[in-house]
């Protein structure tokens, strides 16, 4: 195995494009090292991205959003008061990944590129309307987070391409987001179902909404039907019932050791309802 430490994303992309064998990028390593140890992946080229300047930084964008470096670990996101104030749902999703020790290393970009449909940080990013910068041998492009996962363990990135930054849009006024997941214990488990809701209010009325569902399809889903169920409402009981029904309709889960198909469908509705309430309260400026 060749261990590379490029100091720019273009160099990293060039090394990746030139590699003819098994290739992995290394940010936090909390998935890659487990896969290496299990013998699932034996990289010929391992490209450590942490020597690239800026990968450990969280910065305000000119527009008032946030640019998050690809090696920023969960514990740093959780300790960033301003980011937490703007996008609590995004941060709480990431902070649910693994233990304190894993939080010391694990990254948003890694959680996204690992391609798990149950990745806890991905629904929040998608609901927030986050984008990623994808750098390859021919330059960089900006794509929405929902365009990255292709299926369990797979992404739509081409060989030689990698994520070089994550950008969250400006929070703006009267907005709130939240992420909830179901697991059968209180900590250290993989989501049976996850749901993120991001919305904006005008007075009491929801005027914008994005709802993402995790672990109920081969990729995290962005659900227009769920968003339509609550836009134009005051999130009253009728709207919450419509939202739950929409989430149940969107969920196309499998049955596995974590939960049956029927259970996951029902829980998708429950979590959508609860996450929407929390997001609504946050948009109203109430503590939740």
């Amino acid at each position, binding site marked *: *195995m*060749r*261990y590379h430490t490029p100091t720019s994303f273009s160099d990293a992309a060039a090394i990746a494009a030139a590699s003819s064998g098994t290739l992995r990028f*290394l940010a936090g*390593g*909390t998935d890659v*090292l*487990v896969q*290496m*140890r*299990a013998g699932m992946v034996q990289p010929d080229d*391992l490209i*450590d991205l*942490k020597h690239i300047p800026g990968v450990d930084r969280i910065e305000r964008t000119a527009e008032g959003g946030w640019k998050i470096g690809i090696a920023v*670990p969960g*514990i740093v996101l959780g300790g960033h008061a301003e980011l937490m104030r703007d996008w609590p749902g995004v941060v709480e999703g990431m902070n649910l990944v*693994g*233990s*304190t*020790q*894993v939080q*010391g*290393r694990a990254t948003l970009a890694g959680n996204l590129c690992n391609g798990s449909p149950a990745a806890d940080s991905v629904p929040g990013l998608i609901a927030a309307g986050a984008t990623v910068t994808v750098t390859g041998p021919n330059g960089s492009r900006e794509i929405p987070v929902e365009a990255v996962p292709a299926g369990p363990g797979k992404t739509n990135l081409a060989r030689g391409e990698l994520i070089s930054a994550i950008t969250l849009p400006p929070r703006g006024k009267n907005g709130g987001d939240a992420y909830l997941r179901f697991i059968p214990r209180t*900590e*250290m488990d993989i989501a049976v179902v996850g749901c993120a809701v991001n919305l904006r209010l005008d007075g009491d009325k929801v005027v914008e909404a994005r709802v993402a569902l995790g672990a109920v399809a081969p990729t995290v889903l962005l659900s227009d039907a769920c968003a339509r169920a609550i836009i134009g409402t005051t999130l009253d009981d009728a709207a919450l019932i419509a939202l739950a029904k929409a989430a149940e309709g969107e969920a196309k889960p499998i049955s596995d050791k974590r939960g049956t198909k029927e259970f996951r469908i029902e829980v998708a509705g429950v979590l959508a309802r609860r996450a929407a309430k929390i997001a609504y309260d946050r948009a109203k400026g109430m503590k939740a």
Partner: protein
Amino acid sequence: MSKIHVTATVNGDPVEFLADPRETLLDALRNHLDLTGTKEGCGTGDCGACSVTVDGTLVCSCLMLAAEANGKRVETIEGMARDGLHPLQRKFIEHAALQCGFCTPGILVAAKALLERNPDPSETEIRYWLAGNLCRCTGYDKIVRAVQDAAAEMRQDHRGAA
């Protein structure tokens, strides 16, 4: 296969060694530096027995390559006792917060990292912080009480010194 020259600071001492590119920090600590207090439980980041801090951040040393530790400051269980045992170590003995002891170095390192961030954690905060440290003798209640007691003593000492 070419080896990677790694220099780091471990428990305050400068160290250097040649690491295989695939070698974890855990294996380097144990095999190159003879610091065998850090244990391998699962090797996949689930059990926390290999907990160390790197530049002050609590991590599983099995989930980090030795090469990634180049230039970093690593603290292990061997660096915990300075002038006598650390209060956490003493309280673990007093409360009998261990049975087989295999998870103990990792839990002590993790608990020390907690108390450095939060000198007065609630029981819930302690349990969440230590959720990634598994004890299969299931002595969790005694562990939590020992951490609370050590925290109380350290707060007292801190006030006494101030």
